[in-house]
C-alpha cells in the first residue's frame, strides 16, 4: 500500500501492461513456436552493430576527427559512403565511431541502473519491513520526476559532458530495475524451494545469490536489453540538446545536432546518424521482445 499517488498509478498501469503482455506472448509463442522472428532479426542487427563498433578502426577509411579527409559537404559517393561534413570529415568513419560510443552508452546506462537497482530490489523484496518501505519511498520520489527531467538536473549539477550524461541516464534507470527485481524477489521468496533452503539454515545472502537471483535472471536480461536501447536514446537526446557529448565527439545525437543547421543543403548529415541510432534501438527492442517470447513461452506452454 503506497502513500504516494504516482506510484500506485504507475504500478497499476505496469501490472495491466504485463498482464496484457503475458497473454499476447502466449499467442505469439504458439504462433512462432520456440524461435520468434523478432529474436533472429534483433540478434542480427545487434551483432552487426557490435561488430561495427569493434571493427570501426579497421573498416573506417579515415580517423573520425580528421578534417579535410575529403571536400567539404560532399554528397554520399563510393569514396565517402555517408558524405562529408562542413569540415570535410568523412561521415562514414564518424558514424562508425559513434557505434562504439553507443555501445558504451548502452553498457554504462544499463549497467549503472542494474548495479544500483538489482541488489537493492533483491534486499527490499526478500527482507521486506522497514528496509523495503524506506527504499520504496525513495524510489517513489526518484520516479516523480517526469521523463528525462532528473537527468537534466544531474547534468546541470555535474556539468554537461558525455560521461555525466551516461551517469545521469544510469541513475534514471535504477528505479525500473529496483521495482522489477523487488516484485520478482517478493514472489520468489515464497517459493517452496526457497523456504526449504531457509529451513535448513541457509544464510540470506546465499539464498539471494544462489537460489533467487538465478530464478530472476531471464526477466532481468530481457529488461536489461530493452533498457540498453532506452539508454542509447536518452544519451543521444541529452547530447542532441548540448548536455551530453560535446563537439567534436561523433556521438550520434551530437552528430545530428551538428548536422541540423546544414540539413537543407546536406541532408545526409542528419539522415545517417539518425538511421544508425534508430536501427540499433529497433534491434535491441526486437532482441528483448524475442527473448521474452522464448522464455515466457515455456511458462505458457503448460
Amino acid at each position, binding site marked *: 500500500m503506497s502513500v504516494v499517488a504516482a506510484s500506485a498509478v504507475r504500478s497499476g498501469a505496469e501490472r495491466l501492461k504485463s498482464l496484457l503482455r503475458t497473454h499476447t506472448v502466449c499467442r505469439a509463442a504458439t504462433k512462432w513456436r520456440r524461435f520468434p522472428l523478432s529474436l533472429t532479426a534483433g540478434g542480427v542487427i545487434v551483432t552487426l552493430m557490435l561488430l561495427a563498433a569493434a571493427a570501426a578502426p579497421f573498416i573506417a577509411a579515415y580517423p573520425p576527427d580528421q578534417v579535410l579527409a575529403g571536400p567539404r559537404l560532399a554528397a554520399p559517393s563510393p569514396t565517402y559512403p555517408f558524405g562529408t561534413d562542413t569540415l570535410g570529415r568523412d561521415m562514414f568513419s564518424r558514424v562508425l565511431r559513434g557505434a562504439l560510443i553507443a555501445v558504451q552508452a548502452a553498457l554504462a546506462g544499463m549497467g549503472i541502473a542494474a548495479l544500483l537497482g538489482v541488489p537493492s530490489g533483491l534486499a527490499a523484496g526478500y527482507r521486506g519491513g522497514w528496509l523495503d518501505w524506506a527504499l520504496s519511498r525513495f524510489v517513489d520520489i526518484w520516479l516523480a520526476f517526469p521523463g528525462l527531467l532528473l537527468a537534466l538536473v544531474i547534468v546541470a549539477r555535474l556539468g554537461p559532458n558525455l560521461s555525466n550524461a551516461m551517469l545521469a541516464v544510469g541513475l534514471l534507470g535504477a528505479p525500473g530495475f529496483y521495482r522489477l527485481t523487488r516484485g520478482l524477489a517478493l514472489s520468489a521468496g515464497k517459493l517452496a524451494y526457497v523456504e526449504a533452503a531457509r529451513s535448513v539454515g541457509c544464510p540470506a545472502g546465499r539464498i539471494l545469490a544462489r537460489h533467487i537471483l538465478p530464478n530472476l535472471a531471464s526477466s532481468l536480461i530481457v529488461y536489461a536489453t530493452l533498457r540498453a536501447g532506452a539508454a542509447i536514446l536518452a544519451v543521444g537526446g541529452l547530447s*542532441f540538446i548540448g548536455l551530453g557529448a560535446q563537439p567534436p565527439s561523433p556521438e550520434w545525437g551530437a552528430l545530428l545536432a551538428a548536422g541540423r543547421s546544414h540539413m537543407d543543403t546536406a541532408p545526409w548529415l542528419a539522415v545517417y546518424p539518425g538511421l544508425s541510432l534508430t536501427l540499433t534501438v529497433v534491434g535491441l527492442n526486437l532482441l528483448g521482445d524475442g527473448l521474452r517470447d522464448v522464455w515466457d513461452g515455456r511458462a505458457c506452454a503448460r
Partner: protein
Amino acid sequence: MFIYVARRAAGSLVVLLAISLIVFLALSAAPGDAAAAMAGDSASASQLAILRAELGLDRSPLARYASFLTGLLTRGDLGRSLVSQRPVAGLVLERLPYTVALALAAVALAALLGGVAGTLAALRAGTPLDTLLMAGAALGVAVPTFWSGLLLILLFSLHLRWLPVTGAGTPAHLVLPAVTLALPTAASVARLVRSGLLDVLAADYIRTAHAKGLTPRRVVIRHALRNGLIPVAAVLSLQLGHLLGGAFIVESIFGWPGLGRLAVQAIFDRDAPVVLGATLAAAAVYLVVNLGMDIAHGWLDPRVGREAI
C-alpha cells in the same frame, strides 16, 4: 472516499517537498555559484564575498532552503533569474501554457492515431495489414524524437514549405512538434490497444453479443472497445504527465517556448533559480495530473478507494 483523496494529496505534497529539497541542494552545491556567474571572471575575491552576502549565499544551504520555501509558500516567490533579473514565477507561468498546449495536442493525436491503428490491427490480426501496422509501431517506439523531428522539418518545412520550421504563435507552429512528440506514444498505444482488444474479443460476453445478432460494428465499438480501452486510458494519462515535464528535446528542436526549453537554456546560463523553478513546476504538474487520475480511478472503481483506507 474523502480519506482516500486526502491521503493521496498529502502523499503528493510530501513527494513535491522532497523533490524541491533534493533539487535545491543539488543546484546550490554546483561548482561556480550564482555570485561567480553574475560577477564574471574579472571580479576580485572581496567583490565576490560582498555579492555572496547580498545574495545570501554565505548562509548554509539548509538555511537558504528554509527561506526559499517560506517565500514560495507565503508569497508564491521562486526567486529571481540571475540573467534577466525577472521573477522566476513569472517566467514559469509565461511558459506553462505552451507546454500544456503541446502536451495536450500530442496526447490527443497519439490517442487518435494509436487507437485507430491498434483497432485495425486487432480486427485484422494475422493479416499483412496487422504486420505492417505493428512493424510501424515497433519503429515508432524506437525512433528518437530528435531524429523524426528533423526529418519532418526536412520534408514539410524545407522541401514542401507547408509549415514553419521553428517558433510559436500560430496553430501551424504547433503541428510538427505535436506530431513528433505524439509518434512514440501513438506507437505504444497502438500495441496496447491491439493486445487489449485481442484479449477482450476472445471473451465470452463478446460471443454472446455476436450470438444475439448485434452487428459486428456495434459489438466492437459498444462492447469490445469499451473494456479494451481501460488500460489505454491509464497509460495515456501517465504519458500526459511525462510529456508535460519531459518534452524539452522536442521543444528544443522546434524552438517551442515551453518549460523544458526554459530549463535547458537556464542550465547553459548557469541560472540556478530558473532551473529550480522550471523543474519544480514540471514535477508539480506531473504529480497533479497523476493525482487527478488516481482520484478519477477511485471514483470510477470504488474498490480502489476502499482498499487504500
